[in-house]
């Protein structure tokens, strides 16, 4: 929870997880990739691993993504056996900014972290994380912290 909206909340992940999202975004270019953030929330939100998901929106894979709910149900069940939880998702924006689009906001779900990877010309990738808590709130940025634990 941010203090008076001044400080960003944060999401922490190991270097390998951060690089896996970047690699997936590059490999999928010029189409959008998507995946699931698996972790836990203690004082901070921590990602322990990511699972790549298939983008099932094959007709508009360059500008839309859909995660198959069957795949998500399976990933959630496996996470639970490890004492972990689905805490959010990632997807890429080929040649577009790492900010949520209107489509992202309209289809977004409260409480999940949404990491967006901007991929420029299939090479340069930047990541930012976003979240909203209530249905009528806009996305707010979460600070991504990369470190081992």
């Amino acid at each position, binding site marked *: 929870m941010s203090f008076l909206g001044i400080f960003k909340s944060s999401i922490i992940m190991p270097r390998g997880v951060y690089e896996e999202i970047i690699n997936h975004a590059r490999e999928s270019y010029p189409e959008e990739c998507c995946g699931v953030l698996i972790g836990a929330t203690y004082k901070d939100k921590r990602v322990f691993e990511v699972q790549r998901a298939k983008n099932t929106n094959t007709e508009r894979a360059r500008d839309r993504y859909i995660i198959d*709910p069957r795949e*998500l149900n399976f990933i959630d069940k496996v996470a639970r056996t490890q004492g972990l939880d689905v805490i959010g998702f990632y*997807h890429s924006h080929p040649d577009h900014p790492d900010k949520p689009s209107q489509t992202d906001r309209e289809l977004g*779900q409260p409480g999940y972290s949404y990491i967006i990877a901007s991929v420029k010309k299939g090479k340069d990738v930047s990541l930012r994380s976003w979240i909203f808590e209530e249905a009528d709130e806009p996305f707010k940025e979460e600070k991504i912290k990369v470190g081992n634990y």
Partner: protein
Amino acid sequence: MAIKIRIPTPLRKLTNGADEVMAEGGNITEVIEDLEKNYPGLKERICESDGKLRRFVNIYLNDEDIRFKKNMETELKDSDEVSIIPAIAGGL
């Protein structure tokens, strides 16, 4: 009949943070009615006003989408696990 219900993050504010709750009922509709008694507001997040499943919500009985079974009338038995799975999508 007690059924275990998996609650996704977006609905946990309505279950006091619980990621799993128990509910009574012989089919999906009955279970959701029972959930609503204990966790007011949950039903309208899952169902349209006519009781049908919302478009951006999926319900899985064990590993099967209830839309491919008997939908809201899908019958349940004691060891069943019901998961509420939000639709995850977006794009440019």
